[in-house]
């Protein structure tokens, strides 16, 4: 099971945080700080795995964003890399050539997509097509209601 998933920039600014375990706010902040320090300190051609406490940390850099997740001992790290890649592909499909700004300005959509891919720290859908369809349908639901109410979304 994945314990958490973080996205942060090269300057250490947090862009997304998903927690699959109940942790107090103070501890979450500390973990975010530890992760950003550890991952940003890594040299360019080192492997994507780290050891932190009793968790395996898997991270991958996509352009200016670092995707970082924490796994338990029996989880497959190489597969986690595939999971992170799948998430990036979904974002790319949705936003069209996704970049960091897309995620900054549409963070809630990034969360919605993530919630279709992962739940409780496990993958819930392995078909890209299926996830994209679900997101589109949900968005439609949103717009339909707004149009009906003739009010702007938010």
């Amino acid at each position, binding site marked *: 099971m994945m314990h958490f998933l973080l996205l942060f920039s090269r300057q250490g600014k947090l862009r997304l945080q998903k927690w699959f375990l109940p942790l107090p706010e103070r501890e979450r902040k500390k973990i975010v700080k530890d992760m950003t320090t550890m991952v940003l300190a890594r040299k360019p051609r080192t492997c*994507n795995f780290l050891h932190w406490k009793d968790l395996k940390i898997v991270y991958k850099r996509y352009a200016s964003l670092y995707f970082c997740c924490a796994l338990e001992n029996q989880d497959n790290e190489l597969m986690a890399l595939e999971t992170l890649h799948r998430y990036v592909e979904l974002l790319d499909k949705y936003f069209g050539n996704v970049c960091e700004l897309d995620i900054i300005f549409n963070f809630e959509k990034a*969360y919605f997509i993530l919630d279709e891919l992962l739940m*409780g720290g496990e993958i819930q859908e392995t078909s890209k097509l*299926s996830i994209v369809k679900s997101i589109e349908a949900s968005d439609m639901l949103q717009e339909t209601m707004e149009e009906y109410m003739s009010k702007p979304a938010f």
Partner: protein
Amino acid sequence: MPAPIRLRELIRTIRTARTQAEEREMIQKECAAIRSSFREEDNTYRCRNVAKLLYMHMLGYPAHFGQLECLKLIASQKFTDKRIGYLGAMLLLDERQDVHLLMTNCIKNDLNHSTQYVQGLALCTLGCMGSSEMCRDLAGEVEKLLKTSNSYLRKKAALCAVHVIRKVPELMEMFLPATKNLLSEKNHGVLHTSVVLLTEMCERSPDMLSHFRKLVPQLVRILKNLIMSGYSPEHDVSGISDPFLQVRILRLLRILGKGDDDSSEAMNDILAQVATNTETSKNVGNAILYETVLTIMDIKSESGLRVLAINILGRFLLNNDKNIRYVALTSLLKTVQTDHNAVQRHRSTIVDCLKDLDVSIKRRAMELSFALVNGNNIRGMMKELLYFLDSCDPDFKADCASGIFLAAEKYAPSKRWHIDTIMRVLTTAGSYVRDDSVPNLIQLITNSVEMHAYTVQRLYKALLDDISQQPLVQVASWCIGEYGDLLVSGQCEEEEPIQVSEDEVLDVLEGLLVSNLSTPVTRGYSLTAIMKLSTRFSSLNRIKKVVSIYGSSIDVELQQRAVEYNALFKKYDHMRPALLERMPIMEKTATNGPSETVQTNGETDSTILDTKHLPSISQPASQANDLLDLLGGNDVVPIIQTTVPTKPASAGGELLDLLGDLSLTGGPTPTPASSVPMSQPPFLLDGLTSQPLFNDIAAVIPPMTAYNKNGLIIEFTFERSNPNPNIAVITIHATNSTEADMTEFVFQAAVPKTFQLQLLSPSSNVVPAFNQGSVTQVIRVLNPQKQQLRMRIKLTYTHKGSPVQDLAEVNNFPPQSWQ
């Protein structure tokens, strides 16, 4: 009140802030606006405000005042509100706050909503952050949804059930009926989440595990279809069909096959198929292979399959991709215990990984290398490991040094090699060596008796180079204190002996005392070493001066030592030789790790000490037989070790046989000895053993002269051993009044059958001429039957170039020594 600004507008504004302070100001302003908007209970813009709040929360600002608003959004009828509301609940609420329980009813309603996406939201939120109370309340709803035909909901319900089980394990039974036909689904999402659910149940309950074992054929079939099926665009990743599902199935198979022969056999074929057919050019193929290898190693697979698995790992080690190499090293570490030989084949590749640039890989390779060291490859491996120790990061050095010491202790092919290796570690990584290694090393050095001269010489040379590494300095100063006489006499056999004078040695030791680099502990060591040299060197005045100076040292420990040593010079000078004599062989404390499985290669003397008495008899018995001829005794009974089993020292500590009747021929008549006050039993410095220190003065036993011939006088002084009144502790003092030294002096003793005797090692084997010094040695005699003590002694030494040997009997023991 004007409409609150839109989310994107806020984000844009905040990003224009140039300083942290500016950003904080903007945020505070907006928060105030949001708070007043919340107070007005504005339904229209609640969604927008909470969204903005979530953004500010991500930047690190407090957002707790929005928690109730999230609940209101969830309760709303609009989908947009629900979406943001649930997101807010997942980000801002957690089970620690009682507020979250208010969600339960909303979630319950939404789980039964007509729109599947609303149901999906509810399931998602429950599955991510549902507390145990919420899970208990809503488990029934989840179970219902698990049985629905809607695959979108079914897959979410399955993962929600996983979360419920994690939070409230007792509810696991509830979901059992619903799992009946989960695996017959076509939809991959449902299949995947079902496998996760089954895995969770099997991990938590052995009953479930045995129940689900019957699913193995079905799982094998699904896996087979995935591999054999053609291209499926929906699930394809780099030419492999649904790798996520394949990996999860392999993991479930691992759990089901563990410890069960039938299941393991049923999966052998498919595992072999996956292992051989998977494309390895991309990461995803290697991920599947990795999972397969883990499964093969865990179940009861046939040996061919295991070899295949290890070979896959071996191939991984040669892969260019660092991640793959890292993963291979981690897996090999797990399997090295069970499949040691197979992993040994890849040793050279593993050792090459020590030179990798990546820190994580280096650490794994180091751990694996230590696991692979054995008696056969110790020399080669140690070369590599020492090279690694030289060049690795400081964080590794402590672990590497400890590992090297452990490996050297277990598999050292020779004493000299062992000492050389230790020296190498101390000189290269001396400051990183752990604190407990200093006493261990000292013990090791003491026990390698024939290497004393060599060791002290090398350590002395190392000290001349560098005194900054404390463990090295401590060990070196201890050795110099103990074996300084060997150093000065230039007696080294192993290598070219160096010429060093007593003053030079004292210079070095004094240098340690004053150096800024020395820690207080090190200073203690060197002061004690200097003191010990007072019985081994002749420059007493210099030593006395040093000791008296430190009597007023600021460091309390040093001061105490110096004051006590001073007292030793003044009032108790007669005790000094006995107190400061050579350390006996130390009993080995329990070594960590399996010392029974040690493969010692070419060890000249067995260093594995055991506390069993009998097995050590065989070696001394053969020596005893030699003495039999010489001493002419009959009814030889080999000595049984007494309290402390020690390895026989090569100089004068051989176990002797007990003799039957000692013929009472005229021995040397005991001359009344000059009143030598009772000597204390050897008090071992640094508190390494627990010998009684100053015993009851009231039990004074007068000393006696045991032997006096040809200028060699041997005196016995007595002490009762406090814990056991049946043991008499005799200290012999051998002095030489002739004009030439007596070298290679060996003292041996034998006692009648009813006694038991233990001879500790002598202070030295040179009795200096003109009574300049003496050789002392401790004898412990156990006399349980309180019979009259008699002893036969044998002396051998070299005097003026020719060997001398003599036998004598000692009968004039004072009655108090054996009553």
